[in-house]
């Protein structure tokens, strides 16, 4: 009898945990950079589900998701590549693959993880299942064997990746049907100090922002022989640039309809670019050096955050009128913003308030506050299904 009860109890508790079957469509992670942990969050009840620790130095960490939307791959500054199971909220694998890394991407088929490294400069490839290294592309930029830091690594359609060489001023595009023997295409002399890159949502155009000059380098992946083009050339028009206390991210550019909104470097402006002609069509004066510009998924609004000393401010731009319609101070040191896939919530991290704040982008009201340790990047699992994310 007692044995029976015990069996029953075990069965019941097992059933209880199995009863928590759930999808990952409303899950996400928040990087807690000071403690080297990830907070697993859900956007339906707007709560934290748990914390995954032991991820190392997460300053400037970024995350991509496996195609099942269940596994997050975390790229740490200390060169670590970690794989986290969102459902079990646990670290399943971790490799330290380089001395100093900046970000990564996952191939369209979900099988390859590419990591962009500062030290040693280059891109390394890993099996997404085992995290075993399967390829290495050193960013050799001169005959003397020097390696360039790599930045702006993104996945491109056709089992490929594109990235930029910061020191060398080059864009590289690689196809990795055989990761050990990639088909590489190098575009030299794209401009001085490309600091970040991104791909349009359709996977066609790769853009690299240049720090050493006013302009953006563009490669049309549908027409690889055409080579790199220069757009927005001299957007500063010789004005003395303002100091940039934090590197802007192209990774967060906003695409709204046929327009892209890019943070200008060294100007307190967003550049509005017509992506059919790749020409500047407007500039919007904003409150400081923009860091991220993100579009609400319906394209009606663009939200902008700023570098020190304006990092407590967030501005909302109405896309049709290109006017700043709200200037908010939602928290101290706003580092990152992420919309839910249908745009009814904006999540932002307020580092110095140790909080993630959720706003309703329609009413601008705060709808949730979630405690977090020095939060930085917020990544929702819906990214699993998007090119370049």
């Amino acid at each position: 009898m007692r044995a029976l009860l015990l069996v029953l109890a075990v069965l019941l508790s097992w059933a209880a945990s199995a009863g928590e079957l759930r999808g990952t469509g409303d899950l996400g992670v928040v990087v807690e950079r000071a403690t080297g942990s990830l907070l697993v969050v859900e956007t339906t009840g707007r709560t934290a589900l748990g914390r995954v620790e032991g991820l190392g130095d997460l300053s400037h960490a970024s995350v991509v998701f496996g195609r099942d939307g269940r596994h997050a791959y975390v790229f740490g500054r200390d060169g670590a590549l970690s794989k986290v199971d969102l459902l079990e909220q646990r670290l399943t694998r971790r490799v330290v693959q380089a001395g100093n890394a900046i970000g990564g991407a996952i191939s369209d088929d979900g099988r390859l993880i590419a990591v962009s490294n500062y030290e040693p400069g280059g891109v390394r490839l890993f099996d997404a299942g085992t995290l075993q290294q399967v390829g290495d592309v050193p960013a050799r930029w001169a005959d003397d064997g020097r390696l360039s830091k790599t930045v702006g690594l993104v996945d491109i359609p056709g089992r490929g990746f594109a990235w930029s060489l910061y020191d060398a001023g080059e864009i590289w595009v690689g196809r990795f049907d055989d990761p050990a023997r990639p088909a590489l295409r190098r575009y030299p002399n794209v401009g001085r100090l490309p600091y970040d890159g991104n791909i349009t949502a359709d996977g066609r155009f790769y853009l690299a922002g240049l720090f050493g000059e006013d302009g953006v380098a563009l490669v049309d992946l549908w027409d690889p022989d055409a080579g790199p083009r220069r757009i927005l050339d001299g957007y500063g028009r010789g004005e003395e640039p303002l100091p940039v206390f934090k590197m802007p991210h192209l990774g967060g550019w906003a695409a709204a309809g046929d327009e892209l909104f890019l943070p200008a470097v060294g100007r307190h402006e967003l550049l509005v670019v017509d992506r059919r002609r790749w020409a500047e069509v407007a500039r919007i004066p904003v409150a400081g050096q923009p860091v991220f510009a993100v579009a609400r998924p319906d394209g009606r609004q663009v939200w902008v955050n700023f570098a020190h000393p304006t990092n407590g401010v967030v501005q909302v731009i109405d896309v049709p009128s290109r006017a700043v319609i709200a200037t908010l101070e939602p928290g101290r040191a706003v580092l990152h913003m992420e919309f839910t896939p249908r745009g009814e919530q904006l999540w932002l991290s307020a580092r110095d308030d140790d909080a993630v704040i959720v706003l309703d982008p329609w009413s601008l009201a705060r709808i949730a506050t979630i405690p977090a340790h020095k939060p930085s990047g917020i990544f929702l699992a819906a990214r699993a299904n998007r090119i370049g994310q």
Partner: protein
Amino acid sequence: MARTAALAIALVLGPALAAAAEPPAARQAELLHLLEQDCGSCHGLTRKGGLGPPLLPADLDGKDVAIIALVILEGVHGTPMPPWKSELSDEDAVWLAARLKQGDVP
């Protein structure tokens, strides 16, 4: 060329910078926060390097506090290293440079 110019300026400004007083305790706390979080976004939270070079004592060996302070105040033109003089006073910069050189930062 830029290097030489910086050096020349450092020689002139160096003694003035070196004589700067220590910032008050509350300001020191702010500066350490700035160093970790804001400098950290380019040099790494633990100063092991990122887009900017590592700033550990071994990396700054042979560089004068005054020169380091000057780099912090003026930035390095044509690179992402911004001039911090709108945010930091001379004494702030000297104090930060000395902390970096000694490595006695949390």
